[in-house]
């Protein structure tokens, strides 16, 4: 439940929050517990994105308690800075209310430069900071650096990326800053990675990974924008990273026994469960491993054409709502080392595969 927003003086937000909690405790029939495991800062540029971020993070706060700060920052708007506060409360076990707070800051014109220090002052001490960037990353790296300085994690959604340069910027953030990038598109891939991994759990199947020759990845898209291809690129990069392929600067992929061919294609299909719909891995002996999305049963079905047996592997598709993807990111206490390894390769692969 997101309680009504209260407009407050931006210079005394903490004081207003203290008053809010005092009045909540006095007026509420249920005991109230305040909790926070994260500071989550959402950066938006439009009113629509601001409302969306608020809705998503309010739902996410029910699962991962957090202090939410939603920023709407647009230098093209008239110069102003304003703030609102509200409480996000959720019943636990039908009796206890667990609450966290949401702060909204709107800044326009030159005032956008006052947002970062204000946010720094509002962060709960000793709790990690996740910065959720909605939309395309800005081209001005210094602005990103400035905003990100206190962040432990930068959450983006590469399905909104406009070009490979966004992936390169993400890779730079990972390399050059203490902020660990995280991608909602990467979370969408978790079940696909699990389905692929499951096929190679039997020890007899594991050696096949070294004989991959060709990988075909089919995504769902009506356009061939970079964002629409991002999930497929990440899957390809992950596979190569984990199997130990060498990826050259121009995106060529080599294994110890020869080149690997990647083919990324798209087909029109509903995207309730992310972009991917089919993966086919071909081995040196002509056998194949496939993963298919079964939209009716909400599962991925993987099949490996083995020498001695064929096993169908079923992986449950989890909800791909953005609040669930955010929650899954926040539930990871540390940076995802496999993702960090993957984006470095994805940036190289993207140049060739997205062409």
């Amino acid at each position: 439940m997101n309680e009504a927003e209260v407009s407050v003086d931006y210079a005394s937000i903490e004081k207003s929050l203290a008053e809010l909690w005092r009045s909540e405790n006095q007026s509420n029939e249920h005991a109230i517990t305040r909790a926070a495991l994260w500071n989550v800062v959402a950066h938006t540029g439009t009113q629509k994105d601001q409302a969306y971020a608020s809705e998503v993070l309010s739902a996410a706060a029910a699962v991962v308690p957090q202090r939410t700060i939603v920023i709407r920052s647009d230098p093209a708007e008239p110069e102003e800075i304003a703030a609102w506060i509200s409480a996000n409360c959720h019943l636990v076990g039908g009796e206890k209310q667990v609450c966290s707070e949401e702060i909204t800051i709107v800044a326009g014109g030159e005032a956008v430069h006052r947002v970062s220090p204000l946010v720094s002052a509002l962060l709960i001490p000793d709790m990690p900071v996740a910065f959720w960037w909605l939309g395309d990353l800005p081209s001005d790296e210094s602005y990103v650096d400035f905003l990100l300085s206190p962040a432990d994690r930068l959450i983006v959604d590469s399905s909104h990326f406009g070009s490979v340069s966004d992936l390169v910027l993400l890779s730079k953030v990972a390399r050059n800053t203490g902020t660990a990038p995280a991608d909602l598109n990467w979370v969408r891939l978790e079940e696909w990675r699990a389905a692929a991994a499951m096929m190679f759990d039997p020890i007899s199947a594991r050696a096949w990974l070294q004989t991959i020759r060709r990988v075909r990845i089919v995504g769902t898209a009506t356009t061939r924008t970079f964002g629409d291809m991002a999930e497929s690129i990440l899957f390809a990069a992950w596979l190569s990273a984990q199997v130990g392929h060498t990826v050259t600067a121009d995106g060529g992929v080599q294994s110890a026994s020869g080149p690997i061919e990647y083919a990324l294609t798209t087909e029109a299909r509903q995207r309730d469960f992310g972009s991917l719909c089919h993966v086919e891995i071909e081995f040196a002996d002509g056998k194949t491993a496939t993963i298919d999305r079964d939209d009716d049963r909400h599962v991925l079905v993987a099949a490996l054409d083995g020498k001695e047996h064929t096993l169908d592997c079923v992986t449950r598709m989890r909800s791909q709502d953005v609040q669930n993807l955010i929650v899954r990111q926040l539930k990871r206490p540390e940076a995802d080392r496999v993702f960090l390894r993957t984006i470095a390769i994805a940036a190289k692969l993207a140049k060739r595969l997205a062409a």
Partner: protein
Amino acid sequence: MSVLEPTLEPNPLREGLEQERVPDPSALVIFGASGDLTQRKLVPGLYSLAHEGLLPSGQTIIGFSRADHTDDSFRMAMREACDKHARTKPVDDAIWDNFAKGLFYVAGEFDDANAYDRLKAKCEEADRARGTGGRRIYYLAVPPDFFALICEFLGKLGMANDPEGDGPYTRAIIEKPFGHDLQTARELNRVAVSTFRERQVFRIDHYLGKETVQNLLVLRFGNGIFEPFWNRQYVDHVQFTVAESIGVEGRGNYFETSGITRDIIQNHMLQLVSLVAMEPPVEFEANAVRDEKVKVLRALREFSMNDIDSYAVRGQYGEGSALGKTAAAYRQEKNVAPESNVETFAALKVFIDNWRWAGVPFYLRTGKRLPKRVTDISIHFRPAPYALFSRMEGVRTHPNILAIRIQPDEGISLKFDSKVPGPAVRTAPVTMEFRYATSFGAEPPEAYERLLLDTMLGDSTLFARRDEVETAWEWLDPLLKKWEADPASPELYPAGTWGPEGADALLERDDRRWRRP
């Protein structure tokens, strides 16, 4: 290629996945597959693991019992069991269909050699068709009387091998009770290790599979602030409460031969005591952790039989009310003798004679038909060395208490005094609270899920080792024998209360009180 496979490097595609720890597929044979435990805990737990993506493809489960089932009828029965008891409900048809492909059944008596031949053939078929590679886990969900028989057959047929090196493993899971006393426990262990090696034996105490119990180790050894205070210098005493609001619930037959002390204290509570009192292990590895737990059990002070009432109280529930309903006395329960002297409540004052805990009493109480179901540990700290504020009029200070709630509403709270706002110096106790549900939201996995997965992974940290079991019996045996030889009845307490008056007196003699959990 042989169907018996060596272990290779981990699957690289598993790295970083939420399901990073997925075992190699094995054939899990459940002896007693038509029993309550299989239907309520084991198969629903295995299904939930499959639902979470934690079971490997090819994982095979073979039920073995007397009941007349085919593979298909066993699958149907297990589907019903999962519909009722699985943590992840409703059951997902797609996941179930795939899970059910790995369910098989062998009907037979435990003394029927032909049935074991059929079982062996079924396991070998799984190796060929499902890639289980010769790996076997035997879950003995049967009364201890059958252990010897089953182990003997498995040994004779070469189904209990434990090859050195990287060969396929064979493991046996044993359910409590691990004996009725020291002698029977030793006999059970002798039977188990006559067929299996100790490293192959996984003795399940489901308390150790609970998240909050595992968190005891993280709380103590993953944080820097607690351990310096975790000793006789700062701790006044420690209380353990394992309370159940229900009675024996149709288990009169079992309870009449067991009693609450064997049922709860010998295993669950002594596990909790050893985790709270143990020294830091040199590494987080099965034997290192269990070595330290055994040292605690070895340091438990023997009961003084001449003065037993100063250290131990037993009780039995009479008529009363529980959760708002009238409750019958224990002696009126089904399959309970009308003159039964079996204890349904026990409270003990225990000392651990070692450097860390010398002189610190550990109070344990457990009972049936208490006001509520709760398992709680509280560390009561000594007062401040100089009572600065207590000299002021109207000011009363309280001891600091670190309370660890094992179930339900799992969490940890710290109680301390704070100044009440205002011009006068007045203090009031306040608590800092951590609750799993508040901070982590998600429902923790069932204890059996974790323990089944650990067995498949070969991690025995959360299982009782032979010497733990025997040392616990060695300490408790004299008390049980003393009580059994005593013609006096246990002290009656009305159902729905916190036990007999003697339990309160046990602490009052030390100028202490039970904490209300």
